[in-house]
């Protein structure tokens, strides 16, 4: 059964009077527990597609279903609720909250979005920090840890609400090669262990090989789908 289904999805932006087509009639399905990557040059539509699948934006035309929910029909509050319950995000620039410690950054979605008993909340956070190897740094602030460590924290934060889907837009772009591999490895491990679907965009050819399914975008169109060796 598909987790995500895109049917003729088109996204057009208006820059002044000029319409810019970012995505053209995309059709694809992504199943549960998948580890998927979108590749393509800058401006190919990767971020736009991830924004749509992340319920941060709506298609201009076509239908986008996640768990059979047509996300184009959700209002702002419903979209927020949907993101809180179904999705996790890992950003290129980590986007950790600077005034919160590592532990508090991971705790943040639980405090703001989900209500859990304090003990269950604490156990879940510590377990995830353990899994991503950041338990010893839990009391540090983001400016006291490295880029790779920040991205591990971001992965833990994305997973703390037990989402079905984690979207990562260029998660390794600001990391050195070795660290990038470690982060992808952690994501992969979480996918296997927790059954979470991971979708990430990248233009790093070495990272690309880590995906199970690889989609290639060019000028807003889906030009290739490849099942890699890992699948």
């Amino acid at each position, binding site marked *: 059964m598909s987790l995500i289904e895109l049917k003729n999805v088109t996204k057009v932006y208006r820059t002044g009077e000029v319409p810019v087509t970012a995505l053209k009639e995309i059709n694809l399905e992504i199943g549960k527990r998948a580890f998927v990557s979108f590749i393509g040059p800058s401006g190919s539509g990767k971020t736009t597609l991830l924004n749509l699948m992340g319920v941060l934006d709506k298609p201009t035309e076509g239908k986008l279903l996640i768990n059979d929910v047509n996300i184009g029909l959700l209002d*702002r509050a419903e979209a927020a609720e949907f*993101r809180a319950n179904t999705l996790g*995000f890992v950003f290129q620039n980590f986007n950790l909250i600077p*005034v919160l410690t590592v532990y508090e950054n991971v705790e943040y979605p639980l405090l703001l*979005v989900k209500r859990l008993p304090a003990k269950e909340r604490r156990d879940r956070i510590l377990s995830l920090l353990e899994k991503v190897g950041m338990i010893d740094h839990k009391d540090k602030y983001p400016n006291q840890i490295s880029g790779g460590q920040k991205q591990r924290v971001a992965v833990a934060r994305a997973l703390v609400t037990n989402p079905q889907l984690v979207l990562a837009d260029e998660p390794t772009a600001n990391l050195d090669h070795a660290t990038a591999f470690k982060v992808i490895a952690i994501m992969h491990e979480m996918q296997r262990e927790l059954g979470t679907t991971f979708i990430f965009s990248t233009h790093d050819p070495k990272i690309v090989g880590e995906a199970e399914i690889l989609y290639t975008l060019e000028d807003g169109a889906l030009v290739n789908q490849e099942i890699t060796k890992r699948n």
Partner: protein
Amino acid sequence: MRNLMKIAVRNLFRYKRRTLLTSSLIAFGVILVIVFGGLAISFKTQMIGTLTNTALGDLQIHRKGYVESIDNQPLNLILTGRRLSEVEGALKQNPSVAAYSPRIKFGAMISNYAQTSNIRLSAVYPEMENKTCPGLVGRIKGTITDPDQFIRPGELLVPDNLMKGLGLKVGDEIVLVATNKDGSVNGIPVRIGAVIESVLGPGGKDGYMHIDDAKTLLRMDEAEIVEVAVHLKDFDRLGAVSLELKKTMVTPESDLEVHTWEQLSPFASIARIVDLLILVVKFILISIVMVSILNIMTMSVYERIGEIGTIAAIGTRPSRILSMFLMEGFAMGLMSTVVGLVVGLGLLWLMNLAPIDFTFGMMQVSLAPRIPEGEVILVTVIVMLVSIFASLQPAYKASKMEPVDALGHV
């Protein structure tokens, strides 16, 4: 709520210098209100206390029309017989009334046999007057052994400037000449018992005599009272007691009026100006809080657009984002208010250690400022509400940001 507050405080201290500067400004506004309010309220309270405790009483009862023609001191609008008994009965039955004093007020000529001047006289029963205006004795120069007998029959208390003007001294005999309500002129010799300081400063011509002497001078068979001054147990209940007395006394048949001190003294205007000044200072505080919080919160929202995008992306509802920023403004206001109150109340405490003494008219005023709890609560509520109100627009802007645009903001 606790978590929102924790995050709000941390966000505020992300920019320490800016937060401390803004907080200091708001705290300064709070200090201004507390200290100025404390001094002004203390001055007003002391002045009102002096007026009501040494001259006017807290409220007065007259025949209808008396206050309108008070400058002429008419002797035909009087309370006698049954009407006076009813007034006294109502006052005795009212549990809020501590004491009352019937008075005859009239104008007379005072002569030292060589020179003559005019004087306004209050003829009183000294015991009742002392209980109604307990501060009156303090205005009398010299030693008073029995305050309940501060004036004796045959004696006159003369204001200082008349004493000087007529070259009189205590113990001198003078003649008082007055016209009664029938137009008959009479004169009696009296002795100057003491000098009384005027409550309203130079130019005061108010003297006191025993009511029995006034009856003789004005050829009255019984005391024809023109004014009943009333002293209340709790001055703060003035409005309520005034209403109660009006309900029980003022009927079309009774032909009576009840007036509070405010309706009788020109100082009420000064008291209103003091209140107005306090209000102006509060408006200054509101402006300071409004501009400061609006400024800091607007900057905060613009600096954290990417962060707003992040928290929106992870599923924070717009209403929650609104609450977060409102809480930040509230925390700023709360923090500043606490600092302002501590410093402001501390300054008042220090001023109480060394009270400020000065003369207002002829009154010696000793300012020992204190601010009522209600004012402190009001200032706190004002700052809190204005803080939230000022944060509303930036917070609303933050909550309305599209996460995809906010995340893409550089």
